[in-house]
């Protein structure tokens, strides 16, 4: 499958070990490349994704390789991007639109919520919307309020949409291929803070590149990571940590720094949710911390907290902790005051273990 290796990924292959180590951008690029080659019905489009290859380079080289009618630029019009993707899906294509930042997805919400998410239901299966909407999300890059948001709970609240958030290059490629092959519309949020390396939350520390992380080893060609299966990040008995995206790495780093042996679950997909893994873990540890970067009120953490309470109440030994962003717009200069970093996590861990 050497034809699926992009120029970028060849560069970052580990010469000494022979293992291919990719960052998340390269892994996403490779997933798109694999699927464009494998399925002639796939099309990739969005603002700046064609000739230029995307503002984060996730589609670099794809237009040159697969042609302008398979990979192309679009008008700056998110309603139109999602709207034409619905029509393409009705034709029989498998569209993979990109919304340049999750913060820009709102003009396309009616097409996502009232159309893509409802087609199968309202037509009793005559029409489907097998699209995967890719979009970089989350903060930690000094993007200010319009380049930092985490709007996942807007989508998990909509019946008919799946929401996927990878936390490693290996998962990004395997989950994206699963999302593309899924016959339902999938929102695929890419945590842009960890495009180039995992992030501990200790923002003063030097940036870690992906190549030192075990999950940057990415196989060539086609493979899938199934939707709806959580990943066990670390095994521990003191508490369960439910996280996804960037916060998986922050939680791991904070637990390690505090010497806490936690059962950290990377949820990978919010809908469908791996409730079995969550339930099994919390029943074993009796303590649960839920971590997300998004604003707190009505965030996905509220849903997780309710589920854990409903299913594990008699096993809980302390109140469930939610560690989240604040209910403010994402600030620019005070980014690290907003971000749920080591102090916020650390205090929640202390509260959980005190009981």
């Amino acid at each position, binding site marked *: 499958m050497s034809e699926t290796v992009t120029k970028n990924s060849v560069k970052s292959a580990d010469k000494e070990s022979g293992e291919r180590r990719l960052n998340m951008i390269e892994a996403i690029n490779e997933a798109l490349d694999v699927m464009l080659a494998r399925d002639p019905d796939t099309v990739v489009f969005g603002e700046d994704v064609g000739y230029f290859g995307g503002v984060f380079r996730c589609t670099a080289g794809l237009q040159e390789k697969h042609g302008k009618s398979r990979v192309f630029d679009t008008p700056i019009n998110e*309603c*139109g991007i999602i*709207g034409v993707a*619905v029509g*393409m899906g*009705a034709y029989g294509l498998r569209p993979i639109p990109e919304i340049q930042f999750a913060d820009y997805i709102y003009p396309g919400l009616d097409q996502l919520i009232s159309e893509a998410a409802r087609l199968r*239901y*309202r037509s009793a299966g005559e029409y489907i919307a097998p699209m995967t909407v890719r979009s970089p999300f989350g903060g930690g890059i000094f993007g200010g309020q319009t380049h930092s948001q985490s709007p996942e709970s807007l989508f998990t609240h909509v019946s008919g949409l799946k929401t996927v958030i990878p936390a490693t290059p290996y998962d990004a490629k395997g989950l994206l291929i699963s999302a593309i092959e899924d016959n339902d519309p999938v929102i695929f949020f890419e945590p842009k803070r960890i495009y180039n390396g995992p992030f501990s939350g200790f923002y003063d520390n030097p940036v870690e590149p992906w190549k030192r992380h075990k999950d940057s080893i990415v196989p060539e060609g086609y493979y899938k990571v199934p939707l709806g299966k959580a990943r066990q990040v670390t095994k521990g008995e003191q508490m369960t940590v439910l996280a996804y995206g960037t916060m998986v790495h922050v939680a791991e780093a904070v637990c390690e720094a505090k010497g806490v042996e936690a059962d950290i679950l990377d949820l990978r997909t919010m809908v469908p949710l791996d409730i079995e893994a969550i339930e099994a873990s919390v029943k074993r540890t009796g303590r649960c911390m839920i971590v997300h970067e998004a604003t707190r009120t009505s965030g996905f953490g509220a849903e997780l907290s309710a589920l854990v309470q409903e299913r594990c109440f008699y096993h809980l030994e302390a109140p469930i902790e939610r560690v989240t962003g604040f209910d403010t717009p994402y600030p620019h200069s005070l980014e690290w005051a907003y971000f749920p970093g080591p102090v916020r996590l650390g205090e929640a861990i202390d509260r959980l273990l005190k009981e």
Partner: protein
Amino acid sequence: MADRPKDAASTQGNAGQNKPSLTLHVPEPHYRPGDTVDYSHLDIPEAGAQIRPDEVCEAKETAPLAHDLIRVLGEDNKAHGPWDPKLTPDTLREMLGHFALVRAFDERMFRGQRQGKTSFYMKCTGEEATSVSTAMALAGDDMVFPSYRQQGVLIARGYPLIEMINQIYSNKGDKLKGRQLPIMYSSRKHSFFTISGNLATQTPQAVGWAMASAIKGDSRIAATWVGEGSTAEGDFHSACTFATVYNAPVILNVINNQWAISSFSGFAGGERTTFAARGLGYGLASLRVDGNDPLACYAAEKWAADRARANAGPTLIEFFTYRAEGHSTSDDPSGYRSAEEREEWPLGDPINRLKKHLIALGEWDEERQAALDVECVDLVKKTTKEAEKNGILGHGLHHPFHTMFEDVFEELPWHLQEQAEQAIHERETKFPEGLPKQ
């Protein structure tokens, strides 16, 4: 008056200055209930007087037509000018047959709603040509993305009436499993997209379908219908932009029936320019057509279809017509517009005009018309009775409970399975002996 910033560059307000007070224009229709209606301000050109550019012309060559009104049928009931589609008498009679069936169907379904057999219905009275005649100008496998008043497209494509009625009754025969509001049909077999209910969302979707057809080197084109009121939606701008950027093989049909529920076309900008003229700004070929002239409707749609099929680009067509009835069964137009509007509408009734044309050709007469009308009424009546065997809304003959949870996703996830079990448990608690008989 609202506060001005105290330290603004100009701090004086209007005081001591010569600036006139600004005024807000809120559009107001010409006539309200009880008003005498006079349409003499409408510019109705002679039939046959409009130019007909080549189908593959530059979009800008259509500019005069965006402010004109393409008409074929004259006061003499004959076809005139270069837009005459020269249809055979058989085709004209077929069109008239579809018209009669649509009208009979609308009458019966409206009455059915009033009798409590369903919750909702929408007639297309006076607008039949904008769906039947246009559909006949397309190939049967061209994909259509209709709005909610294009029952004429389904009927012209031979969709079984009983399927329509089952859907309207939301009964156990409804292929859409009782999930959709009445008249929100869907038929993939008839290349008819599932109707939304949110306005203008279908317009960029039609463009996307057309783009897909072009990506695949297919020969099928797409057409969409949208009301003039809904052209105010952002989706319509998205559709026009994508259509022109990718030269998509698509037809954007704008049905200007003057009213969007109680808001007249002025609330979509109709006071300032035509709806066809909006297309010019995007670089779309743009035609404005007498929507009550079946031959003009057919000819314009055919022109646009040929253009799209020749890779010459998309077309926006405004059909200038009149919504003769209320918006829906939930609407009472006597509360906001003059009843005289319908009577005085200067473009007449499309069915009457086609009938008179066929009679003028010596291909039809009043007796055959009367027989056709009776035949359609009987067919609808018979089919309605047939459909009622599958139940009417609210009488228990609906789809099984579990279907409520199906098709949200391709596969049922655990949380929907749990909720389905809850719904069935609730039913069993409510009806321990099973569902009550009607």
